[in-house]
């Protein structure tokens, strides 16, 4: 400070501060903010507002009735079951993939990373369809499965498979860059000091990646519970049996049962909002321990 002041006396006049040349006039600024917020209001706020108002359009008791009706309860149960199987599977996969990719150097690694990302660029409808082609009644394994009395398509296994496919990369994608950045010095030290494989994972690696892991699981879960296209193809839409919550919303909506459709939709919207809040809190508090906030 004093140094700058002493130089200031003889230095040429200071250029205008950066914020002046790097910014626009107040009018332009206000207009741009208005355009951006208007766009977001139109596409983010209004859809959420319409879900809430339509959900309660017929009153609170109708809202509660729509959510406690047996088919709705069955849909909620199925959605929770499918997510409870799919998310841990992808969690285990994400950990394994991140461990071998971020901790070892081997040939073909970049190809492996690209392949892990593949499900994100496949249309959800195709994600469901590939299992119909394999396990459906007219599929490759269909006749064999039927003779052994195993049902995959139009049943829980198919719904779980489709959900696993569309949420496949979430955990791995978060953990791989995070663990690559953290490096393996601490793990190597632990091994040299005699840690076993499990000790190494539980005491050294897990504490370093726990927030990133939670972040990946959170996004994975939101997508698993909300998936529509892929599950729609494999579910068969049997009311009370193979309808997940998003599919139940569709059926109610197509029956013009708007209040009930939006009541179930409001639950899913609440899930999205809770996910968003936790995600944002994680980003604010643990930005250093998340890969997603530093990538790009």
């Amino acid at each position, binding site marked *: 400070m004093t140094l700058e002041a002493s130089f200031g006396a003889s230095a040429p006049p200071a250029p205008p501060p950066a914020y002046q040349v790097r910014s626009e006039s107040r009018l332009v600024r206000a207009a741009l903010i208005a355009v951006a917020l208007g766009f977001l209001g139109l596409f983010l706020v209004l859809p959420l507002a*319409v879900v809430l108002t339509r959900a309660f359009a017929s009153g609170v008791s109708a809202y509660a009735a729509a959510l406690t009706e047996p088919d709705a309860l069955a849909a909620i149960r199925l959605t929770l079951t499918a997510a409870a199987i799919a998310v841990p599977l992808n969690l285990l*996969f994400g950990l394994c993939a991140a461990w*071998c990719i971020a901790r070892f150097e081997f040939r073909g690694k970049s190809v492996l990373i690209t392949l892990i990302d593949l499900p994100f660029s496949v249309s959800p409808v*195709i994600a469901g369809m590939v299992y119909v082609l394999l396990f459906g009644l007219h599929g490759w394994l269909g006749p064999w499965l039927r003779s052994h009395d195993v049902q995959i398509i139009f049943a829980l296994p198919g719904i779980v498979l489709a959900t696993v496919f569309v949420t496949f990369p979430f955990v791995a994608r978060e953990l791989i860059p995070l663990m690559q950045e953290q490096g393996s010095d601490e793990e*190597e030290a632990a091994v040299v000091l005699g840690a076993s494989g499990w000790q190494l994972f539980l005491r050294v690696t897990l504490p370093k990646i726990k927030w990133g892991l939670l972040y990946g699981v959170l996004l994975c879960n939101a997508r698993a519970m909300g998936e529509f296209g892929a599950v729609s193809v494999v579910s068969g839409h049997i009311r009370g049996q193979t309808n997940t919550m998003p599919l139940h919303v569709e059926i109610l909506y197509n029956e013009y049962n708007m209040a009930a459709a*939006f009541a179930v939709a409001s639950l*899913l919207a609440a899930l999205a909002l809770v996910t968003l809040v936790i995600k944002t809190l994680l980003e604010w508090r643990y930005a250093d321990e998340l890969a997603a906030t530093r990538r790009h």
Partner: protein
Amino acid sequence: MADAAASPTGWGRTGGGGFRKPSVLPGFGITLGFTLAYLSLIVLIPLAALILGAAGLGWDGFWAAVLKPRVLASLQVSFGAALAAALINAVFGLAVAWVLVRYDFPGRRVVNAAVDLPFALPTAVAGIALTELYAPNGWIGGLLEPLGIQVAFTPLGIVVALTFVGLPFVVRTVEPVLQELEAEQEEAAAMLGAGRLATVFRVVLPAILPALLTGFALAFARGVGEYGSVIFIAGNLPMVSEIMPLLIVIQLEQYDYAGATAVATLMLAVSFALLLLINLLQHWMRARHDA
């Protein structure tokens, strides 16, 4: 000691000569093995089955299934709407990213967090909400009706749904690049007498162009494959407002596996081409960033 430590999952030692660099860490074999097995079972084998199915149709069979007027019309609808939505997102997404990075206003952090809503909101919920908004008796549809503009149940509705779905992509790819842009170049341009508009168009835009294109391509790719949010608002009229993913679903419901396989393979090819393009763009982005 390292060997003893590695013993519970001691496969790490057997990684084979030139295949990988040696490491003291355990667990390479078992984690790579599980990763490859899981990847193959869930993703690779099912996708290979689809492609093999398409190959089984033969060259003529494949094109006969793809070159039907209804398929070509759906191709046009899907690509046209995805392109329009990606363009809208490129323009407004850039404005949103600019405002979030450069300006301070009350609620900025909340707005920034809200941009990810389309990633979190289930597509079916977005679909029925947008349909309610833009239907002729809806909040926005009611305003547009007297002007003779109908959005819901027309191709315009598809563009609206795809704009919602693709909204975060441009914002999230442009934002970090804009943030890391050095002030010097803009200041130099201003010092050398460039007006603000010229500085933005000649200095800032070229610097963020790779990111903008990447976001555009990501939004476009997502839009081409999107299903859940579109089918409610589209009206789904064959030849007019029927998207490709819906056509696949209809073909599957009619047990037209050959037709569905051909159309799906075409879509898969397009997705992979876009994926390649996006990777090249990101490579370009990184190269520019490092330079």
